[in-house]
């Protein structure tokens, strides 16, 4: 219990009084638009079920569980932009029959929502928002709305809107031939609209009471007579916020259906320890006056061959204490360059700032130019060039001043005068820890898990040449080994049966679907549930940098759980360019389900051309065009929002030339990725992250080899956009 309260405090505690938090904006005025206090049962700001024109503070990532007699909704929300709220939902809808007979009277359904605030509240004008609900799914919740919200008194807010589809009580029955998963554009704003409205009264600072009128008729839930729609259109709810991040709600739909909900919201600004708990850096040591150290200032020391090894050793030890590996160094009378590998700080500027200060403490006074080159797997990704006198002059001033004085340039891959620090390589790293594997979105078993122990080890023969692997042993869990679902046309029309592992393995022809698509991912459960040890990954990777702006990677071995082979990649990414291009080719063979080192017959060459762009406001975009695992050709678009502290939330979609029928349910591959740095939650400095990819469905179309160590994220930390975005920590 104590561990739990400690955790929640660390994860969720708000740290700054609201008045000050609001003032902490980079821009002079507060830019957040009308902010909602209550999350509705769909997870977005609103009444009980109806939407409002409210938003959440920018960057908020949250979740809601809302349960009532007509359904259970599990929502993940993200405030993508001050004016755009997005939601992903996985719901259990009661009263509907699934294709799978055994499931009883409910279906599991995924849906996406988006809300755009067109106008913010100003003077007499209300805030106005337009929203699309369940705009890509199978349509159970499909509806659209335009809504206006107005603050009447500081404690009373009213909203009025018109809705289409579900919000007008209409059910857009999915076309049985349709595989779903595509924007149903032609249905948007179709049918006859109906009104809805809500009033929210903030009774106390923590308690909000909501009354609303909804036009929802609960058609999908009630049309088969299995559930009854609420008897009235009026809904009431009470919501109690017991810490700025948690909210508990009780509500009734029409007075005869009751529900409860729990929601939480995290905001990147609300870290428990905003400045981190890492110890203070060693301060700058200014140089003595030239008269006090004429020899040091003359540079004559540089003729002494013992000078550099001695300085390099001292600096190596001091940097190691800061989590920085001094891989190599060059030193002359007036210039010193260190090549560091940052193993501790998530914001790379902090590594650079601490290294600069240590250099002022270790180097003789005649050295005026300090070059800090950042290495990633032996590749020199950028050099920050500083004048030592600027470091002395600007210590502990606004970070922007040293940014202006610093210069960021491409690093020379192999300058002649660089001396490697002895004794660093070969380097062996290992880690033994428990693992938890979670499988979501299986309608028959919505949460599957497996727990066990995992050993990871890496042996770096020289910078950039790394042998690494992992070994897992399951302890317990409910993940089992199973074949893919049997197509209903081969099973007398019955859906939901799976081939057993033995059946599937015995008949290799099953590894191609009836539509002729090789099963590259839909049999992924054949790789789970093993009670004997498994090797998820075992590779030899070689990273190199042929020119200043070009990076390469070759990886051979067991690349991932289901594929092994060779993967090659080239990336062009100048240190000062927000634009990058890359190419990747993989020749892979499908791994055996049971034999740790064995392979099956399926073999394929996949490849992609990629373009990457980093926008100045924290958004990055990526476009990959090429051939996927099942031999299908197409493109993947990824849009990610990144914060300076390392928070990352992104969405991707892949469309290939595979037809909707071949692809199956969902029509194309899409999902969201969330990655949060541990430092943000715990305060202690580490580059570890926690995160997950939520895919709407794992199918055979648009699937890629999941090879680790892709170049783009390796290279980018020390380059202009990311480095400057996180520059505020230079003097931390």
């Amino acid at each position, binding site marked *: 219990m104590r561990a739990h309260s400690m955790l929640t405090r660390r994860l969720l505690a708000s740290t700054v009084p609201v008045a000050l938090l609001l003032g902490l904006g980079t821009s002079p005025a507060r830019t957040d638009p009308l902010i909602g206090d209550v999350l509705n049962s769909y997870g977005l700001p609103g009444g009980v079920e109806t939407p409002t024109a409210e938003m959440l503070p920018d960057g908020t990532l949250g979740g809601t569980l809302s349960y009532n007699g007509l359904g259970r909704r599990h929502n993940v929300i993200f405030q993508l932009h001050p004016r755009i709220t997005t939601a992903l939902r996985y719901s259990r809808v009661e009263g509907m029959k699934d294709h799978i007979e055994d499931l009883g009277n409910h279906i599991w359904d995924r849906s996406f929502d988006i809300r755009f605030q067109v106008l913010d509240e100003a003077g007499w004008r209300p805030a106005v928002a337009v929203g699309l609900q369940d705009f890509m799914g199978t349509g159970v919740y499909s509806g659209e709305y335009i809504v206006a919200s107005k603050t009447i008194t500081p404690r009373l807010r009213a909203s009025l809107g018109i809705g289409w589809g579900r919000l007008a009580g209409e059910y857009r029955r999915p076309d049985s031939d349709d595989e779903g998963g595509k924007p149903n554009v032609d249905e948007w704003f179709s049918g006859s609209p109906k009104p809805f409205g809500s009033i929210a009264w903030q009774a106390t600072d923590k308690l909000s009471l909501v009354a609303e009128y909804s036009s929802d008729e609960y058609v999908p839930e009630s049309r088969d007579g299995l559930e009854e729609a609420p008897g009235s259109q009026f809904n009431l709810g009470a919501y109690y916020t017991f810490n700025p991040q948690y909210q508990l709600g009780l509500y009734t739909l029409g007075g005869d259906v009751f529900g409860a909900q729990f929601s939480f919201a995290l905001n990147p600004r609300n870290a428990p320890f905003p400045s981190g708990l890492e110890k203070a850096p060693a301060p700058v040591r200014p140089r003595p006056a030239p008269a006090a150290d004429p020899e040091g200032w003359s540079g004559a020391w540089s003729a002494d061959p013992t000078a550099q090894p001695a300085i390099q050793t001292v600096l190596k030890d001091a940097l190691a204490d800061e989590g920085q590996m001094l891989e190599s160094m060059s030193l002359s009378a007036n210039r010193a360059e260190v090549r560091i590998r940052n193993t501790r700080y998530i914001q790379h500027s902090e590594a650079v700032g601490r290294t600069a200060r240590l250099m002022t403490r270790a180097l003789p006074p005649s050295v005026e130019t300090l070059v800090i080159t950042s290495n990633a797997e032996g590749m020199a990704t950028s050099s920050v060039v500083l004048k030592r006198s600027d470091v*002395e002059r600007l210590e502990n001033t606004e970070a922007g001043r040293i940014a202006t004085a610093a210069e960021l340039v491409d690093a020379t891959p192999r300058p002649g005068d660089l001396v490697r620090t002895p004794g660093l390589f070969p380097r062996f790293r290992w880690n033994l*820890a428990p693992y938890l594997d979670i499988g979501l979105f299986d309608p028959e078993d919505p949460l599957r898990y497996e727990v066990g*122990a995992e050993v990871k080890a890496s042996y770096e023969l020289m910078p950039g040449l790394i042998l690494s692997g992992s070994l897992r042993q399951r302890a*317990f869990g409910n993940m089992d080994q199973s074949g893919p679902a049997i197509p209903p046309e081969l099973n007398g029309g019955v859906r939901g049966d799976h081939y057993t592992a033995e059946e599937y393995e015995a008949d290799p022809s099953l590894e191609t679907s009836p539509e002729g698509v090789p099963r590259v991912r839909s049999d992924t459960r054949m790789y789970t549930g093993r009670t004997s040890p498994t090797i998820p990954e075992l590779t030899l990777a070689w990273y190199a940098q042929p020119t200043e702006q070009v990076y390469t990677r070759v990886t051979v071995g067991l690349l991932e759980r289901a594929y092994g082979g060779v993967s090659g990649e080239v990336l062009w990414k100048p240190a000062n360019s927000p634009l990058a291009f890359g190419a990747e080719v993989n020749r892979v063979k499908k791994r055996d389900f049971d034999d740790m080192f064995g392979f099956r017959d399926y073999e394929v060459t996949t490849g992609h051309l990629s373009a990457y762009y980093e926008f100045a406001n924290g958004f990055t975009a990526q476009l990959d065009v090429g051939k996927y695992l099942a031999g299908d050709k197409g493109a993947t678009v990824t849009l990610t929002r990144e914060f*300076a502290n390392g928070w990352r939330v992104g969405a991707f979609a892949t469309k290939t030339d595979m037809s909707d029928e071949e692809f199956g349910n969902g029509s194309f591959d899409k999902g969201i990725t969330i990655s949060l740095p541990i430092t943000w*939650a715990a305060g202690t400095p580490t580059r570890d992250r926690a995160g997950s990819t939520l895919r709407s469905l794992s199918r055979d179309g648009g699937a890629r080899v999941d090879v680790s160590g892709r170049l783009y994220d390796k290279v980018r930390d020390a380059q202009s956009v990311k480095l400057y975005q996180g520059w*505020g920590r230079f*003097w931390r």
Partner: protein
Amino acid sequence: MTTTRIHRAALSTLLIAGLAACGNQDGGQDANPLLIAARTAAGGVSAMRGDKAAQAQAPARTPEQMAAEALRVNPAPLVMVGFESLGRTQVMAMTGQNGAMRTYMAPSKEALILRDGMVVGTRGLGHDLSVAEPGTEALIRAGRSGTARRVMRYYSGDGLERPLSFDCTVGPGPKPGVVLESCEGHGARFQNSFMPQGGHLPVSRQWAGPKLGYVTIQVLRP
């Protein structure tokens, strides 16, 4: 049958928990959020226990005793610092000097950066002040009355350095020799007090930030 299974599961849970993360791997790993959460919580608890144990062992000492011992043991310039919100008073020793700016550190490697007695920044406290730019400094040192702007920059949770700016009035305090600096901004207000002596600020009580609160500073050895 079921019992055995549960038994076995419980046993392996214990085994798994027992091996909770050992190794020497570099940072930058992707970990399962739930496991990380568990590890973070475990770390927090053991850190708390560690704190308690350390406190229990150290005999309770008065600030005077701490000052006397530090002056005897440490030849460096020293200040006695009280962090009111942390309920902690400690002696900090100078570890670096850059012009008029001095960095004082505690043995636990937390730092207070002062410019001849004026708080410029803090490091390692979790809610650090990155840099203070007190436009009032000259008025305070001279003991004159007037108004000026004070900008305080903080490390914010989203990884940026964000400024808070305050309008401040400097004037004499109720007691002779005390200069008060009253600041207001962003719906918050605070009051710093100084006892300037010949332009130096040997004794003061200064506001370091919304979470850190007030810090009292007394120069033990200049």
